[in-house]
């Protein structure tokens, strides 16, 4: 495959960026998107050009480190992470525009790499359980109904990649918040801090400069882990209950 890549290049957080156009040849459709970028970078390096900076770690779709806006779609055209996206999803001769996640709360560090520590600070604000949950055998001592356990697990699959923010027209992180609040709120161990958790996490979310939710649904449609939109309703409900309890 031969592809034309329009890639956002930016030397540093304060530098003004812009698009550069590169051509890559002999791309196998079995390559992952990131392998294709590795190929490009080897070429660039051979030609004495600074390689394109992008984030990646596990490359098996479980860590949430990678994440690119690919021709206007977060993680590209498939429901998966950028590392698990393969070149067979593109056609020969295609022009692909690659941009970093765009959000005030996710400043660009370099090229396609953004700083997502805003998510870490949201987790630090309340996305945890303080009680000692014991060792592995103790888990069996606290029965959790199947429905709750399943919902908790499904929402715990959120890898914090930031695609929801990237895809949202408001750059809102409500799907991320909803996933975390639902994940912990469905479990018995999560009840003690349930009210303060949602209040503190929403406050931190707003403080970081993420936008508000308009229930458009682009986040859930872009989520590589298919976190459903009803977690945002759950988040709103938990906040409502917490606000009442505070009075």
């Amino acid at each position, binding site marked *: 495959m031969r592809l034309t890549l329009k890639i956002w290049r930016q030397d540093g957080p304060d530098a003004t960026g812009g698009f550069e156009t590169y051509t890559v040849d002999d791309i196998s459709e079995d390559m992952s998107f990131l392998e294709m970028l590795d190929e490009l970078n080897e070429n660039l390096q051979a030609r004495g050009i600074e390689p394109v900076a992008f984030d990646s770690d596990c490359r098996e779709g479980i860590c949430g480190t990678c994440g690119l*806006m690919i021709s206007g779609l977060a993680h590209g055209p498939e429901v998966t992470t950028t590392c698990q996206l393969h070149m067979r999803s593109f056609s020969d001769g295609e022009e692909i525009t690659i941009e970093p996640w765009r959000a005030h709360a996710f400043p660009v560090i370099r090229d396609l790499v953004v700083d997502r520590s805003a998510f870490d600070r949201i987790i630090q604000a309340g996305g945890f359980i303080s009680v000692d949950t014991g060792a592995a055998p103790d888990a069996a001592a606290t029965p959790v109904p199947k429905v709750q356990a399943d919902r908790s697990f499904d929402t715990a699959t959120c890898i914090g990649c930031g695609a929801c923010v990237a895809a949202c027209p408001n750059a809102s992180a409500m799907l991320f918040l909803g996933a975390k609040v639902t994940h912990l709120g469905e479990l018995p161990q999560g009840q003690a801090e349930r009210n303060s958790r949602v209040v503190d996490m929403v406050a931190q979310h707003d403080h970081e400069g*993420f936008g*508000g939710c*308009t229930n458009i649904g682009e986040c859930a449609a872009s989520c590589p882990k298919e976190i459903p939109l009803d977690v945002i309703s759950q988040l709103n409900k938990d906040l*409502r209950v917490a606000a009442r309890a505070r009075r």
Partner: protein
Amino acid sequence: MSSSIGLKWLMAVTGIVFLLYVLLHMYGNLKVLAGQEAFDTYAHHLREIGEPMLPYGGLLWIVRIVLIASIIGHVYAAFTLWSRSSSARPQGYAVKKSISSSLASRTMRWGGITLLLFVIFHLIHFTLVKPNFNSEADAAAVKESPYVMVSASFSLIWVVLIYTLAMIALGMHIYHGAWSASQTLGLTSTPRARTVAKTTAQVLAALIVVGFLIPPFYLYFSSL
């Protein structure tokens, strides 16, 4: 309350106030079908509800105050959230595609502004100034009878057209707004509740568009 979810709450609750009002308004409009006497009596009766406990037109003023308070809250929340959203993404994408969002959901803001402008026009048209656009209608009768006032206006195709476009905008706003409000109020935490909320929003939007468009079209075709 100033959190983004608090503002959404304000938006949802005031939106529900409008929704209830619009349903009542639609019901009243349909009285046009019962003829001039029924419609004029209804319009007059609206001012007498609650007498003698309330003064003449008292209930109408209570409703107006609630609506004015709601519009202030709704618009305030909308613009605050809009400006937060704009600063949440100072630099946009060169290429951005929508995967699942509906046209209605993406036009809430400009559609809302369109509706606000329409409401101002509509108040001038039928409540505040009552200009007589129809040279064939008797100006005194237009001031006297609400039925004559609306039928004189709706015998003009351009007036019917303005109201039709406005009702389509309203339908789209409700289609996304009613579902969005139930999501904001935390009533849609299960897939089933979500389906119910979406269907309810669709039915409400369709009902309101059709219900509001029957009187103008009825009056237009009866005037031919």
